[in-house]
């Protein structure tokens, strides 16, 4: 692609991604849709705007036919609470360790520290990023990874 074509494609793609994300379309589906557009315009020599029209309208059209999971609010709340508790245990244990005191209930502060780290590790492990993957390579799209 020439720089001009590449720039036009990047702009079209970013607008489509934003709309598809707002419609909660899963990352692998977004990758599928974008790869279709990219291969089509590369084969036909058309611009994305000529072949697929406005990226936002096209994204809405595609999103409407994809079953998307509703926002999982309970999972988000559980992660937030878990993260808060883990952080509190960690901070309190670190403070008590510095003061040479046990944590609540006479538990040694280093055990509290380990517990806090374990809780935080568990919470962060549960949060999996929904990356946009290119079905042709199986790799995450670079520009999207940084979003």
């Amino acid at each position, binding site marked *: 692609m020439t720089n001009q074509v590449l720039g036009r494609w990047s702009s079209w793609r970013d607008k489509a991604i934003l709309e598809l994300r707002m419609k909660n379309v899963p990352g692998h589906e977004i990758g599928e*849709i974008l*790869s*279709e*557009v*990219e*291969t*089509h*315009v*590369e*084969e*036909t020599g*058309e611009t994305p705007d*000529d*072949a*697929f*029209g406005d990226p936002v309208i*096209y994204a809405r*059209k*595609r999103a409407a*036919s*994809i079953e998307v999971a509703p926002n999982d609010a309970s999972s988000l709340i559980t992660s937030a609470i878990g993260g808060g508790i883990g952080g509190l245990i960690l901070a309190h244990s670190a403070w008590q360790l510095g003061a040479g005191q046990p944590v609540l209930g006479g538990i040694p502060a280093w055990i509290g520290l380990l517990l806090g780290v374990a809780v935080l590790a568990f919470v962060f492990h549960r949060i999996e990023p929904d990356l946009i993957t290119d*079905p*042709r*390579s199986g790799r995450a799209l670079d520009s999207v990874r940084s979003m």
Partner: protein
Amino acid sequence: MVVLGIVAADPEPTYGYRIAHRLKQSGMGQIKGGTLYPVLARLEAEGLIASSWGEGDGGPGRKFITITPFGRDELKRRAEEWRAFIRIALDVLPDELDS
């Protein structure tokens, strides 16, 4: 259904650009990607076609499309319905219009 027919008529796995080209050749006019790919996605969601990504002819990877056995059955059934509908419509229409 026409798109499904084009996919079914191709002896090899086909792809979007080729389908658009065949549609144009068959007199259906220029079908834009923005119209074609949502149709293909719907056909796939209905289980009428299947797709997989593969190498293109020295070009970018292509999404190859084939009709499923269910798709063939449905195409046959829907084509018969269309033929029946067209026969009825032709019976209703006059052969010649009085001037």
